C-alpha cells in the first residue's frame, strides 16, 4: 500500500524542527508501525539521508519506550495499544499520517520523535517505591489481600510510564502517571507505611517538573495504551489532601 507521511524532524534539542513529507511506496499491511518506519529509514540511509530517530525497545507493548503521536493521537488510532503494536492494516491505501513527538514543556525533544522523559524518573525517585528489606521471596498468601484489591492494584501497576497521558492532555499534566504509581502501592498493605509521604513527594515533584494541572477532560484515559482509569487520579486527590491535612511533616520524614 501507498501512504503519505508528515514526520517531525528536529536535529537536536536546540535547533528548531519542522514537518517533512515522505511517501514510502511498498508498505505491507502486515508491518507494524515501527517496521514501516524501519523500512523508510533503510531507504533514507541508502540515499545518504539522516534516518528518523524514534524510541523503541521491546516492540511487544510492555516497555513504554515508543512514544509518537499519530494523527493527533498518542500511539495512534487503536484503543489500548502502543505504537509498536499498531499495524499498517489499521490504515487505508492513500492515507496521510502526521507523526509527531510527545508535546509537553516538561518533555523537551532530544531528536526527531525522541523526547526526554527523565522527569518521570525524578517523580518515581520521590516515593514510587516501598522501602523494605526484601530478602528472599516470602510465602505466597502470607499477607492476605482480597482479590478485587489485588486486581485494582495490578490494573494501576500496568502503567508502563510511556507518557501518552501527558501527550494527550491539553495541559500536559502527568496526573494519570503519578496516580497510577501512587495507587499501585496505596492499594496494598506493603504500601501503607509510606502512603502519605509518597503522595506528597510525588505530586510536589510532578508540579516542580512543570507539568500542568488536571482538568478532568479524560483525554489521558482515552489515550492510555494500558487503559488506566482516572479513578486513580481521584485516589491521588484524596491521598494528597489527606496527607496535607494530617501527615506530620518534619525534616526526617520529608522525602526531599
Amino acid at each position, binding site marked *: 500500500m501507498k501512504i503519505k507521511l*508528515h514526520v*517531525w524532524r528536529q536535529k537536536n534539542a536546540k535547533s528548531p524542527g519542522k*514537518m517533512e513529507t515522505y511517501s514510502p511506496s511498498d508498505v505491507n499491511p502486515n508491518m507494524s508501525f515501527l517496521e514501516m518506519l524501519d523500512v523508510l529509514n533503510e531507504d533514507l540511509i541508502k540515499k545518504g539521508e539522516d534516518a528518523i530517530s524514534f524510541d523503541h525497545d521491546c516492540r511487544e507493548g510492555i516497555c513504554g519506550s515508543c512514544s509518537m*503521536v499519530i*494523527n*493527533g*493521537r498518542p500511539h495512534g*488510532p487503536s484503543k489500548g495499544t502502543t505504537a509498536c503494536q499498531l499495524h499498517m492494516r489499521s490504515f487505508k491505501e492513500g492515507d496521510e499520517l*502526521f507523526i*509527531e513527538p510527545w*508535546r*509537553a*514543556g*516538561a518533555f523537551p525533544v532530544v531528536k526527531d520523535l525522541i523526547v526526554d522523559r527523565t522527569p518521570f524518573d525524578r517523580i518515581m525517585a520521590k516515593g514510587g517505591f516501598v522501602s523494605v528489606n526484601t530478602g528472599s521471596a516470602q510465602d505466597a498468601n502470607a499477607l492476605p489481600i482480597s482479590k478485587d484489591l489485588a486486581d485494582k492494584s495490578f490494573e494501576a501497576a500496568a502503567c508502563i510510564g510511556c507518557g501518552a497521558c501527558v501527550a*494527550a*492532555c*491539553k*495541559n*500536559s*499534566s502527568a*496526573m494519570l502517571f503519578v496516580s497510577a504509581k501512587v495507587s499501585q502501592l496505596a492499594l496494598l498493605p506493603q504500601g501503607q507505611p509510606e502512603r502519605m509521604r509518597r503522595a506528597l513527594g510525588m*505530586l*510536589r515533584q*510532578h*508540579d516542580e517538573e*512543570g*507539568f*500542568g*494541572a*488536571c*482538568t*478532568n*477532560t*479524560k*483525554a489521558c484515559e*482515552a*489515550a492510555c495504551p494500558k487503559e488506566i482509569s*482516572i*479513578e486513580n*487520579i*481521584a*485516589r*491521588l*486527590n*484524596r491521598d*494528597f*489532601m489527606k496527607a*496535607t491535612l494530617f501527615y506530620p*511533616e518534619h525534616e526526617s520524614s520529608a522525602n526531599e
Partner: protein
Amino acid sequence: MNSWVFKAMKSTIGQKWLMGLSGLFMIFFLLGHMSGNMLIYAGPEAINTYAETLRKFPALLWAFRILSVVALVVHVVTAVVLTKRNRAANPIPYASSAWKGSSWSSRNMGMTGFVILLYIIYHLAHFTWRLTHPELFSELDAFDAYQMVILSFQEPWLVGLYVFATFTVCLHLTHSISSSLQTLGINHPKYNEAIRRLGDFLAIVLFLGFSSIPVAVLLGILS
C-alpha cells in the same frame, strides 16, 4: 512562607480543591437562585414577598452575599493561576488535531467561564445595581422585582443575551459537576454513571428554569 498551608495552596491539587469547592458552592447558589426565581410564575405577590423577606434579614443576606463573592473570587483566581500554568506546560501544539479524546465543554471551561463572568457583572449591573436600565426602574418601588423583570425583558436582544448566557452556564455545568467531585476524590464505578447523569440533568434544569423567565415575558405569558 514555607508552611504546609502555603505549600498546599501552591500545589496543583490544592488549587483544584479550592476551585472545586468554590464551584460546588456556586452550584448550590444557582439552585437556590433558580428556586426563588420560579416564584415569578406564582404571580407578583409571591416573588415580591420573597424579595422583601430576603431583605428582612440583612445579616444573613450579607453573610451569604460575602460568601458568594468569596467563592467567585477564589474560583476566578484559581482558574487564572491554573490556566497560566497549564498553558506554560504545553507550549507547542500538534500539527494534527484530528483527535481530541475529550468533550468540548471539558476543553473550553476557561472560555465559557470567562463569558459567564462577564454575564455575572452585567446581570448585577442590571438588577442589583440598576445601572443598565435606569429609565425603566426609576419609578419602581425598590421591592417590585416582578415589574423589574417584566419591564426589562420587553427587549428581544436582552432576552437573547440572557438565554445565551444561561446556555453558557449549562455548557460549563455539564463538565463542572462530575469534574469537581472527581477533584474532591469522589469517583467510584458504582455511582460514576449516576453523577454524570445528575450533572447533565442539573445543567439542563438550570438552563430551562432560568431561561424560561425572559422567554415567557417576551412571549407575553408573564405580564
